[in-house]
Each structure stands twice: as C-alpha cells, then as structure tokens.
C-alpha cells in the first residue's frame, strides 16, 4: 500500500470518528423512548424483547437469515475440494494444546446456555450457535497441526444435522399455520406461555432458539471447516 492511500484511509477514519463523536455528543436524544417490554411480555411471554421480536413477530425474517447461512454453507462445501487439514506454518506450544482441552467444555456449555436462555436473558440462538461453532473450529484448528485431521462431528453428519434443524424450523412454522392459520404463530396456537422468566416459557420461542442455534452452529462450522480444509 502506498503512503498516499494510507494517508487517505487514515484521514477518512479520523473524519468518521469525529462525526460519530459529534453525533453522540450533540445530536438530540428522544426524551421518552417507547418501552416495548410490557407489550412483548403480554404477547409472547418472553422477558427478552429482542428475542421476542426475532423469533415471534419477525420469525419469518429469522427463517430468511437461517436460509442465507444454509445456502452459504451448501455452496462453500460444494465448491471447495476436500483436502487434508494442516496448519503448516504454525508451531503450537503445549500450553495451547492442553489449555484447549480444559477450556473447550466450558465454551461449549456457555454456548448451549446462551441458546437455551435466549428468551429470558441477552443472547439467543444465533449467538449461542456462533459460540458453539467457535469452540468446534478452535478444536479442529488446534488439533490439526502437523497433518493429522481432527473433527468434532464428521462432515457428512454436519450437513445432516443442519438440514434436519432447517426442516424442524419450518415444521414449527407449519405447526403455527395448522393450529392458528398463520405461519410461525406462537401464542395464537394456544400453546401455554408459562410463567415469564422461567426456562420453559414463551411458547415456541425456546424451541426456535435451540433449532436456530444448532443450525447456525453447524452451518458456520461447515463454512469455516470447508475453507480451512481447502
């Protein structure tokens, strides 16, 4: 990169930062933003309003996002040839190799907890899925040093799990269509919403959280592993 383009880039970044700082300092703030939490609690039984919007009001958009990841994983896995994984340029110390063993169970459990508590606390299916995908990628990358290949789940099983989760998501949607007459309906189907704040509450939202978490986790795992094995 030439010195001129670096200067242009740096000055652009500085101007951008000054504009953001100015906006934050000077721009007027809305005095009383509309609080959606009581409305979402009444409609869906979910304490986390963001999760209620993602998996109830706008669940069809979430299905679209899941489709994007499904298509990307399919195309990437289709286009990249399968070769042997290796990190040739890397030499890992024993601290990394043994530290990963100690760390991975906790990362995976954190991901599953974030998925399962999506309707009561921040997080949700997508975030938990990415945490699980990060832990599997971490394992595969660290243990593929020196030529031997390591998986958590075999690639063929990965694709089967992803397709099953996608079908299950659409199946929950069709359940709403059959029982309440609208695709991905939640409270309208008559499903018990439970006590707000408990793990088993909010109708179909925890189901969709878990399904999309499995789907995103496996899908991102396929994408990263395909590019890693390429």
């Amino acid at each position, binding site marked *: *990169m030439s010195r001129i383009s670096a200067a242009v880039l740096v000055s652009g*970044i500085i101007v951008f930062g000054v504009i953001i700082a100015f906006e*934050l300092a000077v721009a007027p703030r809305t005095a009383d933003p509309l609080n959606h939490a009581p409305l979402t609690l009444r409609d869906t039984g979910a304490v986390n309003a963001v999760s209620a919007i993602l998996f109830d009001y706008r669940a069809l958009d979430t299905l679209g996002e899941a489709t994007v990841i499904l298509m990307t994983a399919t195309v990437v896995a289709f286009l990249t040839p399968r070769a042997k994984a290796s990190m040739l340029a890397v030499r890992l110390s024993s601290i990394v190799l043994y530290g990963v063993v100690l760390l991975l169970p906790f990362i995976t459990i954190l991901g599953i907890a*974030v998925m399962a508590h999506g309707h009561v606390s921040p997080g949700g299916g997508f975030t938990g899925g*990415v945490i699980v995908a*990060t832990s599997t990628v971490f394992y595969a990358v660290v243990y593929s040093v020196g030529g031997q290949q390591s998986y958590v789940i075999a690639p063929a099983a990965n694709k089967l799990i992803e397709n099953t989760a996608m079908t299950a998501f659409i199946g929950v949607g069709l359940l709403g269509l059959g029982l309440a007459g609208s695709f991905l309906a939640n409270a309208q189907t008559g499903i018990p919403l439970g006590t707000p704040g408990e793990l088993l509450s909010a109708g179909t939202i925890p189901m969709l959280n878990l399904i999309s978490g499995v789907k995103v986790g496996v899908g991102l795992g396929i994408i990263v592993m395909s590019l890693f094995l390429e």
Partner: protein
Amino acid sequence: MIYATIGLVILLVVIAIYAVLSKSVVAAIVAVGVFSFVVSVIFVVLQAPDVAMTQAVVGAGLTTAFFVIALDKTNTDDTEGAE
C-alpha cells in the same frame, strides 16, 4: 455515560489507525479483533447486550479465526509490511 462512549470511539479510531499502519500482519489481525471487542463494549454502554454478545462472538471470535486461517493459507511472511 456519554463521555465513556466518546472515549471508546476515540480508542476505536486509534486501533483502526494501528491496524492499517502496522507492519506485522498478525498484529493487524489482533488489532481488528480488539476493534470488534471495543465495539461490543460500546454496545453494552449503549444498553444493547444482545447485539454486544453477537458482535463479540462474531467479530472478535469467528472473524479473527477466519483471518488467522487465511494468513496460514497464504503463507505470508509475518514481517512483510504495508509497503
């Protein structure tokens, strides 16, 4: 609250300049990861914990892993710089 946000935004600018101008590719990758992490701290300060979690996981975790794998695939010498 607002001063913390302004301070973090200025920190973002400093990290971005470092990522662009650093001679070492690995240092630039780590700087981009730190950039994502500071963005997620800004989201927490602005009371958006859901977005902050996603930003931390995707930006600081998965994207950094992608960059590290890409750096390993291209077999770039670490000391090759911006020139």
